[in-house]
């Protein structure tokens, strides 16, 4: 009878390291391919650009690096239209170098890949602390490495990868310190840095503090002191700087997303989109780790659950994200998904152990591991589902990822606007990132992220339900005021419209705008504008027959 191979512990450890190496190399190849897939050519030049929200931060970063202050429009009003200050500073750093605007996003994308790679190493260490089986950490790393949503947000320029790294690192250090018993302030330090990257990181900071204050009785005071102290410090510093620089207590995005939107609407939408996420990911896989709570509620498991539930709770509280219609984990949940994967692998491994008692032979154990690996691989497909055609092709970078088609359009439009206007032109936009960044013109943000007046206005009516969550509201996308953005601020070009053109028409008429289709882009141009290069416009008008 064929005997199952017996692997010596040393060899097994070597093989595990080899497996890790292979995953990391595969991840690097994947990242390279992914980033390449997000680039495109405009007029023969290759462009790299980020997801539009990240490009808003890039616009602030460029102005900061260019000595124009932390503002959206150089020389414009000071409005805090970002919620990721440290990330904006990080972006500004790259703008200190003479890098072409078509290439600078690549630097951010590469740094995103580096953060993700570092996160994989931390997840490996964390998994090795947490999981009992020698091979199981590989599976957790594999799931994290090829989780589309974490990769997509990060490699398209959002701060999610860095936040995931900080959260994983804080969790790992906290767990290691707790096991070894000495107190460490580093977990709190990492999360405090996280709050500077994005203020929402106060959630895991509070959760971690509360958890260890509960579980580590001996060091309770130190946990509370460091956790709450750093939390207060970070909030005070940020608020102080905001008051000094912007004259505001809260960021403009807070007013935009919270004022006028009832808590019940936010929670309704948050629950609904979370339900969609769970259902879309094959709900059983998402709820499976709850078995750990029932059967093996060990402290590390409880910690991971607490951190994960903190992020889920926050996502529900704020009504989810603005791009939930794409499916998958939103930015708030994606950063905690590595912790979910640890719980997921732990559950499967515990069940495997329970099903295959030790008395069974080596073959059964080997097959058990094989089945475990196969389930994890198949699950990866479920976790990477998006609400679009060719989801697998987009995940595997056989096709270009979601958002890229929009990015390309906005970049091309920005370059076109630069061509047909002079430097004093003002452009009204809906997507306030790429167009303004590449047009290098002053922008008017019709959805109010960088406009205090609109951010403080009441949202437009909504009549949505659980069946159509984007009709309840779309965070940051439900306030506009055409009277202000078009008639009062009088942009030279209205580059995009939001909602129906019928609603906008009277304001365009009152402002003296005419419709032009240039290079296929529909634009409303103020006919008396002195900042529009009319000769070029007239030569580029798309004939009606097209």
């Amino acid at each position, binding site marked *: 009878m064929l005997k199952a191979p017996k692997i010596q512990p040393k060899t097994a450890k070597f093989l595990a390291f080899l497996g890790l190496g292979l995953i990391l190399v595969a991840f690097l190849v994947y990242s390279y391919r992914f980033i390449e897939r997000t680039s495109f050519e405009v007029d023969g030049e290759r462009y790299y650009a980020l997801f539009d929200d990240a490009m808003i931060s890039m616009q602030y970063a460029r102005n900061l690096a260019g000595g124009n202050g932390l503002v959206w429009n150089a020389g414009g009003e000071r409005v805090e239209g970002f919620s990721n200050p440290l990330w904006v500073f990080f972006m500004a750093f790259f703008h200190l170098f003479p890098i072409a605007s078509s290439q600078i996003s690549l630097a951010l994308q590469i740094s995103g890949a580096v953060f993700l790679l570092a996160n994989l190493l931390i997840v490996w260490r964390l998994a090795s602390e947490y999981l009992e089986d020698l091979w199981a950490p590989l599976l957790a790393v594999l799931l994290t490495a090829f989780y589309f949503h974490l990769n997509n947000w990060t490699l398209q320029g959002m701060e999610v990868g860095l936040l995931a790294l900080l959260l994983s690192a804080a969790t790992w250090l906290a767990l290691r310190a707790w096991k070894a018993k000495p107190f460490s302030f580093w977990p709190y330090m990492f999360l405090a840095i996280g709050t500077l990257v994005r203020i929402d990181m106060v959630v895991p900071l509070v959760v971690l503090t509360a958890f260890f204050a509960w579980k580590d009785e001996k060091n309770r005071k130190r946990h509370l002191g460091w956790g709450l102290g750093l939390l207060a410090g970070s909030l005070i510093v940020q608020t102080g700087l905001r008051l000094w620089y912007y004259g505001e207590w809260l960021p403009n995005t807070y007013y935009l997303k919270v004022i006028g939107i009832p808590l019940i609407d936010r929670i309704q939408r948050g629950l609904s989109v979370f339900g969609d996420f769970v259902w879309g990911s*094959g*709900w*059983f*896989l998402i709820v499976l780790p709850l*078995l750990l709570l*029932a*059967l*093996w509620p060990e402290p590390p498991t409880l910690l991971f659950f607490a951190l994960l539930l903190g992020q889920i709770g926050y996502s529900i509280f704020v009504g989810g994200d603005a791009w939930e219609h794409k499916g998958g984990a939103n930015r708030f949940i994606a950063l905690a998904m590595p912790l979910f994967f640890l719980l997921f692998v732990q559950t499967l491994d515990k*069940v495997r152990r*329970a*099903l*295959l008692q030790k008395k069974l032979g080596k073959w059964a154990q080997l097959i058990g591991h094989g089945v475990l690996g196969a*389930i994890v691989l*198949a*699950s990866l497909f*479920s976790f990477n589902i998006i609400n679009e055609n060719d989801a697998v092709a987009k995940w595997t970078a056989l096709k270009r990822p979601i958002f890229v088609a929009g990015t390309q359009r906005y970049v091309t439009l920005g370059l076109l606007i630069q061509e047909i206007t002079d430097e004093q032109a003002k452009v009204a936009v809906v997507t306030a990132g790429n167009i303004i960044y590449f047009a290098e013109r002053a922008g008017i943000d019709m959805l109010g992220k960088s406009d205090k007046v609109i951010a403080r206005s009441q949202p437009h009516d909504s009549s949505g339900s659980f069946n159509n969550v984007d009709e309840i509201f779309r965070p940051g996308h439900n306030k506009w005021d055409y009277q202000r953005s078009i008639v009062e601020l009088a942009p030279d070009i209205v580059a995009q419209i939001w909602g129906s053109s019928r609603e906008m028409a009277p304001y365009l008429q009152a402002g003296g705008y005419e419709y032009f289709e240039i290079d296929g882009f529909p634009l409303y141009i103020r006919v008396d504008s002195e900042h529009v290069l009319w000769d070029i416009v007239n030569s580029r008008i798309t004939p009606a027959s097209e």
Partner: protein
Amino acid sequence: MNSRLYQVGFVVLLVLYAAYGLAFIQRTAITADGGQMHALFDDAMISMQYAKNLAHGDGLVWNPGGAPVEGYSNPLWVLMMAGIHLFPIALTQTSFYVKLLSLLFLLLNIVAIKLLAEQITENKLVPLLAAFLTAFYFPLNNWSLQGMEVGLEALLLSTALLSGVMALKRKKFSPWPYILLGVAILLRMDAAAPALAATAAFAWPDEKRRRDHLVWGLGAVAITLGGLTLFRVAYYGDWLPNTYYLKLGGVSTILRISLGLRRFWDFVWSSNWVLFALPLAMPALDKRKILWPLYGVFLSQVAYSIYVGGDAWEHTGGANRFIAAVMPVFFILFAHTLGRLQDLVLANIKSRSSWVAPVTQGFLALFAGLSLTSFNTLLVQDSIAKWTLREKPVFTESVERYALMGLALREVTTEEATIAVVTAGNIPYFSERAAIDLLGKNDPVIAHGPAHINSSLFEPGSYRPGHNKWDYAYSIGVLQPDVVAQIWEGTDEEAAPYLVNYELYVIDGIPYYFREDSPNVLWDLIPPQE
């Protein structure tokens, strides 16, 4: 769970299901001329057409007086339908009784599933969960309550397994499983696949009675298939049904199997693959050989479905007709797996409080409820609304259209008229006119002809079993129907040269081509065209 609660729970389930079934039937009713009529899924109406002709003394044929062609694959079901036509029931109501009979079979099947589950486990939650999942499984209900033989096939397979497992447990031989499987083959020939699988699965573990199993099992298959073949040769002059040539001829086996695999994968994926994979844990949880027949019957139907390239309506999602019939068996395995996992959970929980067992049972019930929602997720929009009857079930709108087309064509044609159709059930049945089957289910010329397939490995393209053969030069050019009621989707250009002598008229919003020189069209009754 105490015994009384268990039995009451089951009775409540049956009552709820009966109410659901009646509501379902009501949801498929058609309002016409101020009254209510009933019709079945179009393929079932083809069988109804044969049944009507048989009951009226015209023989087992599609068109009275027409050539004998075996355009059905469910002989016993056709006979049962013919029985209904022996009663003085209006054609607009016969379908109602077919639906009602199916509801009865489905109710009996739920009872059989509960009894079968009781044979394999002591855990009382398992039979209840299996019965619940079976009762409210949309594809099984939809196929059955819209007139297909799937409900009866499910009942025959479940009862065959029940009697076989009971005999196995008593360590006695019983011929009943094989008699019931033989009846299933008479109902639908492809039941030979689960019959053979069940025979093997009963014979293998029962060493002492292995010979009896093999003799009865193989005998039942041989006698029924042999009997059907003899009848076919004698009556239709053919060794195989026309549907065999139609579906299997002209399509490579490799392509068919690859498409069958693709269809099966789509079904599993859309119903949540993890839930389907769950019973795979069963060999680790329960190694008893008594489960083998259940695995055998379920897997044989899946294999058969893959072998024939799936069904023609896979685009709607959910279990096709072949797999839907054995989904109750799957539900037993699924519920049994959950029961065993519950045991595992209870064994690992240190607390021995009295609330632990009821709480885990509650979780399992909740889990089964959520799973049912996954199993009932189709590829069509609003599938949950269709399952819960907030919207009409799938196929109902097209059935209504075809039935009303049939009634409309009866009004504007004489009894001698011939009508070319794509959907060969409702229109011929309600128009009561001779029909020409453009897709060849009832036309050996088309069925033996080449298939139009633009599919590749694992990419279904236009492939739909039984819907890939047509020849307008023959069906319209040679046979010259008085009316062309339908053209197969995407073939308008191909049909156009043969419709030059036809005039397009729209009646009640539906376009028909009438042959310009037809004496069998009541031209005065055709409404004026805008």
